[in-house]
């Protein structure tokens, strides 16, 4: 019997060291090419700063950037946390009730078609310049992958499992608790991985839409960088690294709370 957790193809997982080296190859090639292009083609650094210039900006503006980063990171993390809870709850509600599904389905999909630059000012107008509108915007953008992935997993549960539980006299609620929710858990976390990756973009747009002096986060840094393009790029670099780290952390969390859904390299 084949191990459902094993990846197709050659099967054996790559050694951790090799995996990390390979993960660095892409970014390093990109940075090297970029550096060479800026230097050799003599590009105006106001338009496109070289990676070394960005690195210098990271170091020169580290206090400003760190302060902005902590703000933006909060918006992303709390926003995604809200998205995870609300998104998963929405999926369960849509799974349990055909009425809810019919009523909310189009709304859920439609909500994703609203361009952020349209949505963000409205929410800032309603909710003010503080943290709240930013959380709302991040959550609105980020609940979608969670809802879709969770709903899909709930719909795909092997129908024999709830049937077996019915022979044991299980109520609808017990079937949900023992079968459907655990089955959907890894999918919800997969959705959250997508969410943290796009959460950065949502947070930046939210910050663009308005903030109190000095509380604009990385979005504020990018917006006020003006001719100091390197600083804006430094902010972007921080966002990219943060996305990689948070996605990895979620993968780890998934492994911890849903170990059955993962391949085990030792084959046990």
């Amino acid at each position, binding site marked *: *019997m084949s*191990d*459902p*957790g094993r990846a197709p193809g050659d099967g054996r997982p790559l050694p951790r060291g090799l995996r990390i080296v390979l993960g660095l190859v892409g970014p390093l090639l990109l940075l090297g090419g970029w550096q060479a292009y800026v230097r050799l083609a003599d590009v105006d650094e106001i338009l496109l700063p070289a990676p070394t210039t960005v690195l210098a900006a990271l170091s020169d503006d580290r206090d400003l950037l760190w302060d902005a980063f902590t703000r933006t990171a909060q918006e992303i993390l709390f926003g995604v946390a809200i998205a995870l809870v609300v998104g998963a709850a929405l999926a369960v509600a849509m799974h349990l009730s055909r009425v809810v599904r019919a009523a909310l389905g189009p709304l859920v999909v439609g909500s994703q078609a609203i361009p952020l630059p349209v949505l963000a000012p409205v929410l800032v107008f309603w909710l003010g310049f503080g943290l709240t509108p930013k959380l709302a915007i991040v959550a609105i953008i980020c609940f979608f992958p969670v809802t879709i992935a969770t709903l899909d997993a709930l719909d795909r549960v*092997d129908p*024999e*499992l709830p*049937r*077996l*539980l*019915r*022979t*044991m*006299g*299980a109520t609808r609620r*017990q079937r949900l608790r*023992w*079968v459907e929710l*655990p*089955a959907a*858990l890894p999918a919800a976390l997969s959705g959250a991985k997508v969410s943290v990756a796009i959460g950065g973009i949502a947070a930046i747009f939210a910050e663009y839409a308005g903030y109190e002096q000095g509380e604009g986060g990385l979005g504020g840094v990018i917006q006020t960088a003006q001719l100091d393009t390197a600083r804006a790029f430094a902010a972007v670099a921080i966002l990219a690294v943060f996305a990689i780290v948070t996605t990895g952390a979620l993968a780890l969390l998934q492994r911890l709370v*849903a*170990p*059955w*859904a993962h391949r085990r390299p030792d084959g*046990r």
Partner: protein
Amino acid sequence: MTDATLPAGEAAPLVARDVRLALGDLPVLDGIDLEVGRGEVVALVGPSGCGKSTLLELVCGLLAADSGTLRTRPAALMPQRDLLLPWLDARDNVALPLRIAGTGRREARARAGELLDRVELGGFARSRPDQLSGGMRQRVAFLRALATERELLCLDEPFGALDAITREELRAWLSGLLDARPRSVLLVTHDVEEAVLLGDRVVVLSPRPARVTDVIDVAAPRGARDTGGTPVPRDPTDPALVAARRAVRDALHAAIAADRGRAA
């Protein structure tokens, strides 16, 4: 759970009289008469697709008959695919029916642990299903059915998905368990060998819509023990078993031939 005794109850756990059922326009059960007495193992054999599984669904309360009478004590189902919950370890899987019946976690786990220990599977209590072999998973699935403490066990081709060697091993294991602690069992199988090795009676069904065409008593005793007191499975070369096997096979072929005759 008490050891060498049957769960309480007086009457036969299952009595079916002229049970009929159609799924949509498709007649599936065409007047089934069936009885499982206390402590009796009744094997149900029939061509594939004849309606055996539907009959089990009736007995386990997943379906209701269109007509006829079905008197059944609460039944526990052991499905063909083990259907263990991948997120629970073996002990929690065995404990599942207890938890659903409202037993607290600690108590349910203790009882499931005892059950596993008793059949010397205690070492696997904390293993998840994906860490167990196919044969081991079926054993756990059987214990889960036992843990319900229901009067009737419905086994739906319990070893059908296993390789031949494991299947033989598990048959011996199950027959040992049933000899040591008799249960009322309805065993659905399409394996004649399995039916006569484990069954006290073999009920032969016709192709769909299913009727009972023959009932064959297996005249070989169960529950023999060796000098050490360990239950010994029936000997497949026992003349009574050989005769029963031939009778079941003939009855099956006759049922299929009669059906072909009807269709032609």
